[in-house]
């Protein structure tokens, strides 16, 4: 039996009928065509699928869509809604060359957003801790940490 749910993604409300075994990741990518959110391991280890649900970072691969009724979701597409003006986190990732293959980037940026909302002036240690659930297969962590520190500075100004 399909379940009808209403959820807000990046400010837009969607009414959907979902199978109970569909994950939020599948619904975002396959039904809403929001393919910015990636799928990596599917078991909550890599963080490529990270999105915010009611302001908290979660693994969308381990989140059932049926449990998302009434929730507000932010994906990487929500960071720059117009598609023209990038979010300070995105700008910092480009400026600091924190992107190599790019697969971990959406998840990294949402983990960064979650960190900076709760802790606007993180130490390097706190940044590293905040992205410990996001794997970068290119191992470009140093640049990512620098980008998040730069974004923190920019967002405070």
């Amino acid at each position, binding site marked *: 039996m399909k379940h009808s749910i209403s959820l807000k993604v990046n400010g837009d409300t969607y009414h959907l009928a979902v199978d*109970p*075994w569909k994950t939020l990741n599948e619904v975002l990518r396959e039904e809403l065509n929001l393919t910015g959110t990636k799928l990596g391991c*599917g078991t909550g*280890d890599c963080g490529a699928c990270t999105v915010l649900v009611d302001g908290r970072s979660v693994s969308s691969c381990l989140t*059932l869509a049926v*449990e998302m009724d009434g929730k507000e979701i932010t994906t990487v597409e929500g960071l720059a809604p117009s598609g023209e003006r990038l979010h300070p986190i995105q700008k910092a990732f480009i400026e600091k060359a924190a992107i190599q293959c790019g697969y971990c980037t959406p998840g990294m940026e949402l983990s960064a957003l979650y960190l900076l909302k709760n802790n606007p002036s993180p130490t390097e240690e706190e940044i590293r801790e905040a992205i410990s*659930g996001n794997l970068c297969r290119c191992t470009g962590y140093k640049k990512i940490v620098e980008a998040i520190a730069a974004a923190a500075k920019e967002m405070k100004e």
Partner: protein
Amino acid sequence: MTLPKFEYLAPETAEEVCRLLKERGKAAKVMAGGTDLLVSLRNRQSRPAAIIGLKGIKPLALIVFDKKKGLSIGATALLSDVASHKDISKMYPAIAYAARQTATVQIRNMGTVVGNICNAAPSADNAPTLLAMGAELIIMGIRGEKRLPLARFFKGPGITALGKDEIVISLFVPLPPPHSGISYQHISARGKVDISAVGVGTMITMEGKKCKYARIALGGVAPVPMLAKKAEKRLTGKMLIPDVIEETALQAAEESKPISDVRASAEYRRKMVAVLTRRALLEAKKRAGL
């Protein structure tokens, strides 16, 4: 990579969960955060016909601290909420720490402390401190509610004392006695993201300079999180001088029954029990005001 098909049930009360469990039997699985259950579905280690979601039952998400009675952690209270809770951080620092040391930010925003306990992994990060503090589980079944000491809950890896129609609705932790200190120490090969190879939780209660009462709980070194009772006895009535702490740590290592697996060898685990017991006792001693 998709999940196998299942039916999703969203009861509104805990009583309804018990009724559904009785009706459906083993074909139904209860889900709080889903961070363990959905992984086992994805790996086809578990194929329930139905999942009973607990998140719609609002009272189960509560964390309540009562200055006179103690702490109650509801079945769906998130690891991140326990980790950052002001009263828990102040009165039960090792419980907050253990929750904060479990998995990653994302998993802590989804997973629950009670779920970590109910999955009954020998290495569950939240078990040792709770065992050391004498926590109890509030269990609901078709025939009503009961309380069970956590020390009697674990029956084997992944096996608990829960009956077929029963669920844990909350976890109760008594107030730490005056002049007591608690600590949780753990170690794993890959920092905190990986499951702990060994964890040690302790609570010591002092009377003057002597230890009146001690509890030492070990994780990851036996089929279930266990109490090191002989080690506890070594501390009782003694001053916490380095020799006594060392003797207790070695006794705890001797009592542990570790196995070798992908995370660590039995020999390494046994050594780490001594190291972590020493660290835990020193921190607990400090927190007890000594």
